[in-house]
């Protein structure tokens, strides 16, 4: 029975106004968009059936996502081209379908396999390159970067995998890759706060999700 189900992995971009839609709202938005496709969707069992959807990782409010991923299930296999066609009609304009794949049902969930997230941050236009470079180097020299996250303190140093400052078309770009596992999740806006930069003044784009290889 379970083998009949088709597991579909969708890669999508979350842009524009939809950046301001939170994770739970996005989940409901996907459920309704999927229902509009009229595809034979897989529902959970029970008195209050829900669509089976699985989002890889919550994207913080205000961030753009260029390559977000989610899984959903169909009762039976349908050609990917047809799924894509129906999704393009039913998705809001600011959720852009990038890719669809059929995925083996035995593979681990997106959340379980997620390792890290890569971000590109356009820094505020008044940022001085030398100054910011120095500040980052200062932070790097410290043994730990404690950050107060609600009730607990996290060490951002543990969460940052790599970073790189560059210039593109007159804008300062900070590329940063951070851990995104269920236990350790890095947030680039926290790193910006340590640099005394208001994340609201930046454009923050999650460019890539990296998963555990089989």
């Amino acid at each position: 029975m379970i083998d009949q189900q088709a597991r579909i992995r969708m890669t999508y971009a979350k842009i524009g106004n939809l950046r301001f839609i939170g994770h739970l709202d996005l989940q409901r938005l996907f459920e309704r968009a999927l229902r509009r496709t009229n595809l034979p969707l897989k529902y959970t069992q029970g008195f209050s059936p829900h669509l089976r959807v699985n989002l890889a990782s919550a994207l913080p409010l205000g961030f753009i996502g260029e390559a977000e991923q989610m899984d959903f299930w169909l009762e039976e296999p349908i050609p990917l081209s047809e799924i894509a066609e129906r999704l393009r009609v039913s998705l809001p304009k600011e959720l852009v379908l990038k890719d669809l794949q059929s995925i083996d049902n035995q593979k681990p969930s997106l959340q379980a396999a997620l390792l890290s997230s890569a971000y590109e941050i356009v820094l505020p236009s008044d940022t001085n390159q030398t100054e910011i470079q120095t500040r980052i180097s200062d932070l790097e020299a410290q043994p730990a970067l404690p950050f107060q996250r609600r009730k607990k303190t996290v060490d951002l140093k543990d969460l940052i995998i790599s970073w790189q400052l560059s210039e593109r078309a007159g804008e300062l770009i900070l590329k940063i890759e951070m851990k995104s596992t269920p236990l350790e999740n890095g947030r680039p806006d926290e790193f910006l706060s340590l640099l005394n930069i208001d994340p609201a003044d930046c454009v923050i784009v999650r460019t890539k999700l990296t998963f555990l290889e089989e």
Partner: protein
Amino acid sequence: MQNLKSIDLEKILYHVEKPGRYVGGEHNQVLKDWDSVRSHVCLVFPDIYDIGQPNLGLAILYDILNKQPDILAERAFAPWHDLETEMRQKHLPLFSLESKRPLAAFDIIGISLPYESLYTNALNILDLSGIPLLSSQRNSEHPLIIAGGQACFNPEPMADFFDAFVIGEGEEVTPRVVRLYDLLKSSGKDRSEILIALSQVPGVYVPSLYEVAYAQNGTISDVMPKFSAVPSFVTKQIVPCLPPHPTKLIVPNVETVHDRLSIEIMRGCTRGCRFCHAGIVNRPVRERPIDEILQIIEDGLTATGYEEIGLLSLSSSDHTQILELTKAVYERFHDRKVFVSLPSLRIASFSVELMDELRELRPGGGFTLAPEAASPRMQTIINKPLDNAVFEETVRTIFEHGWLSLKLYYMIGLPGETMEDVQAILDAGKRVLAIGRQLRGNRVKIHLSVGNFIPKPHTPFQWYPLNSTEELQTKLDLLKEGTRRTGIKLSYNIPDSTLLEAWLSRGDRRLGQVILRAWQLGAKFDAWGENDNMPLWRQAFEDVGLNPDFYAFRERPLDEILPWDHLHTGVTKAFLRRDLEWSKQGRTRGDCREQCYACGILDAFGKVRPVSPLVYWGCP
């Protein structure tokens, strides 16, 4: 005019709670090219998005206006405190969700006023838009500010702030007003000429064109049009046949109340409960045929992806085809994984049968009944008679059919109510609990929800005073004491919270100063119990020099000129007086589908009644 520099807005949105409320971009939003149309209308619901967006009236007008090639309609809502603070600090005007344009850039702003506790928010919205609050202070540079909705059957307290009110159903009048305004404006007419012309459109009330005179005792002595071209009274407008229902409803991106596919299956009610404002002002009853409803569900689900449908009316079990409808809804949609809610059911086993037809489509949770009064005497006074055997039979059926929780709506403070009548509510609750426990054991939950009666304009009870705060408190105390440790849950409103609605719903236009003053003192979001604005309102009355008790606690003589007498619902004042008399005599009035009681509706609207037997009107 430029739209807001998006970067300013985005930076602010980064810091506010639930920013998805403010960005629009939902599925089925209509975004037209600004320059491609002649008229730009901003539809406003003066509460936050979460409350306003699901409003079906707003959705209907949005749909109708955007279907016109020469008109665009966008939406705006009240910002929550956090965004308002930021906007005021940064001098950012309130903007529409679709194009993010400031409201002042629109030709017309149409504000929905379904209830009185939104009045201060309406003022706040004009202020946040940089638009003068008083109609008299606005000129041809400013948008036309109009309102519609159920509270506008007595718009007098808001008369100072609005250029015009649409009285009654807006489906046909609204596009007419938009086009006429465009025509007048483009032909260079000045503001006063425009207002006089608008006042001649049936259903449009321009308050500034009427002079109100007061007697020594503070009551109204006369209401006179200022010009001969202005009609001496305005009769509400109706649509003879319910127009096509919107199906491409906007699907909110953030969670809202009533987040579902709402479908109006019937308008109006023939039962004649004497306290009920909606029952009078929405006459005559017009039904949507079952086939049309099924098609709306089909199209609506396809267009929205909603997982829940709400079949709305004032009294769902009175739809002549309701049983067939529930059967057909189950047949056609049971494999679509949808829930169907059917609120406003009458107290009869038949209602349980209807819910049974929906089987697994009905949402979880309890069953709700609204007896409103518990003693036979009170039931007669309010004209909502309920045979006790029928009540208990219905309750038994509800428990036998699987429900474990039952919510009962009652009112206290009704005319002529005694403590015995209040005790009867308690007794009813206990009886229902006993029946439930006998059938289903201790898992049964009974919830008594008790509201305070507020006399409403245009109803047979419009002359009655509001119960005093002390009386209401004594009655509530009895209920609180009586439900303690019984397993019955009691919910109620504190007596003070009913005062605002009581003052404003039967107020005259002098209250405009009080509303303005209350807003200046900081009153807004009056519908939200959490910020108790009562001290501000009392202060406002004092500052303006008006006595609030005059509006709430005074019994009006039957020959008094009431502030809303020049606004006609089609139901005559003579009928209301007669019905009040019947109430005092202990006479009930039957369902008016069985027999016409000459309320006046057929005299007012009989000539537009469709001749087709396919269009159902409740009147015989």
